[in-house]
């Protein structure tokens, strides 16, 4: 891989993460800086994702750069059978940066090997989504004042949740304690638990989403429990309302607790939570802009 691309969260050291977060904080102070004047970025979205794409495009625009790209592979030569390699090589002729989302796992890594232009992975199948993890880390640091020694409770679909798996890796540098709250069908896979064991990260697992757990938590990370993921639909019916956060469940929680969600949310966070000062999921999405600006400058070697 060309050394500047960002493909996977596990390629970032603790030092890299802190540097990017520090820069994101500078961008939050002022996101409009002419650092990308004269530069062109390509957003190649082979799979749709409005939120991530708009976030990246805004990031480039507010830094004075220009954006070209596509949102749907069916309008490109991919539909004629052009290989990914050829598409990347062709685009590399025109731009200084490639931001890519693809439905195949490993696509971003392959792209980063095929071109000298830096590649930012905006999501490859069920594999990695490093900019989401960085905005999650930024949100955690901002609301807690630090990253170290926090208790993070993850709720919902922990089996297929790309963002929770990535967050575990990202947080592993900072001595966390995890609580995993999920129905049996969607519990945290062995791979992630083995990772925690390897890194001496303590964790607890349970199926009950109780106020007890919430009251011991600093960051409450909610994810959606999807019907499609269940092989046993009776099980889904039993659990579909169990992993929903309602405002009254926060009554005994810590002052510093914040509720995060990678969005979009459906019903797992009740609307009565929105007015709580502890609801942070909207600001979390806003932090995506700053985190992505920091990532873009990092891969292009631009100092802030």
């Amino acid at each position, binding site marked *: 891989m060309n050394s500047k691309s960002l493909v996977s969260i596990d390629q970032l050291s603790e030092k890299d993460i802190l540097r990017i977060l520090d820069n994101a904080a500078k961008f939050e102070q002022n996101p409009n800086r002419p650092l990308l004047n004269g530069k062109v970025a390509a957003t190649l979205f082979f799979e749709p994702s409005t939120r991530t794409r708009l976030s990246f495009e805004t990031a480039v625009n507010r830094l004075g750069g220009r954006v070209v790209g596509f949102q749907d592979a069916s309008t490109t030569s991919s539909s004629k059978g052009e*290989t*990914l390699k050829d598409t990347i090589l062709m685009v590399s002729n025109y731009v200084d940066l490639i931001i890519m989302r693809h439905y*195949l796992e490993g696509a971003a890594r*392959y792209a980063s090997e095929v071109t000298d232009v830096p590649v930012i992975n905006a999501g*490859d199948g069920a594999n990695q989504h490093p900019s989401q993890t960085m905005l999650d880390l930024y949100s955690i640091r901002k609301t807690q004042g630090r990253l170290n020694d926090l208790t993070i409770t993850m709720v919902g679909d922990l089996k297929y949740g790309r963002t929770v798996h990535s967050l575990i890796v990202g947080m592993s540098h900072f001595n966390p304690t995890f609580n995993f709250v999920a129905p049996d069908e969607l519990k945290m896979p062995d791979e992630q638990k083995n990772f925690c064991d390897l890194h001496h990260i303590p964790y607890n697992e349970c199926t009950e989403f109780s106020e007890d757990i919430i009251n011991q938590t600093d960051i409450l990370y909610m994810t959606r429990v999807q019907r499609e993921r269940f092989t046993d639909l009776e099980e889904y019916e039993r659990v579909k309302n169990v992993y929903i956060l309602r405002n009254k469940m926060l009554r005994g929680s810590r002052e510093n607790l914040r509720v995060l969600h990678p969005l979009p949310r459906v019903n797992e966070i009740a609307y009565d939570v929105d007015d709580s000062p502890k609801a942070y999921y909207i600001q979390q999405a806003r932090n995506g802009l700053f985190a992505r600006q920091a990532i873009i400058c990092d891969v292009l070697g631009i100092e802030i």
Partner: protein
Amino acid sequence: MTEKKKELLVAAIENGTVIDHIPPEQLFKIALMLGLEKTSSTITIGNNFISGEMGRKGVIKIADKFFEEDELDRIALIAPNVILNIIRDYEVVEKRTVTLPDEVVGLVKCNNPKCVTNNEPMPTRFEVIDKEKGTLKCHYCERKINKESIIIKVK
């Protein structure tokens, strides 16, 4: 008399490579791995011979062919205990075991249908993350596969 008959089962070669102590069920996979269907060298293959150590074993002799170290080391993926003999002038000039490499390129198929390697014309690449258990991790989609699930790509 029986000794002579046993020896005739697999003739000696003048120069070349001998792979011995092959578990019988892996023999043809190894032949595939080495691309033997494409070579014009004289090949002798024997299987299910009685072996003191293994019970039954297979042997492959390829005349006038010498392989690169990494070509042979890949055998360790499915048969870590084979013995390699390099023959010159009917003499064994080198005898060694195979060591699992750190990386395997272009040999093993990724069993994730959504991996880019199964959808683009490109070689696969796996990191050996556990040499003891023979666990591989796809460099692209990051999925892990066990030794038992390894599928050799037909070139």
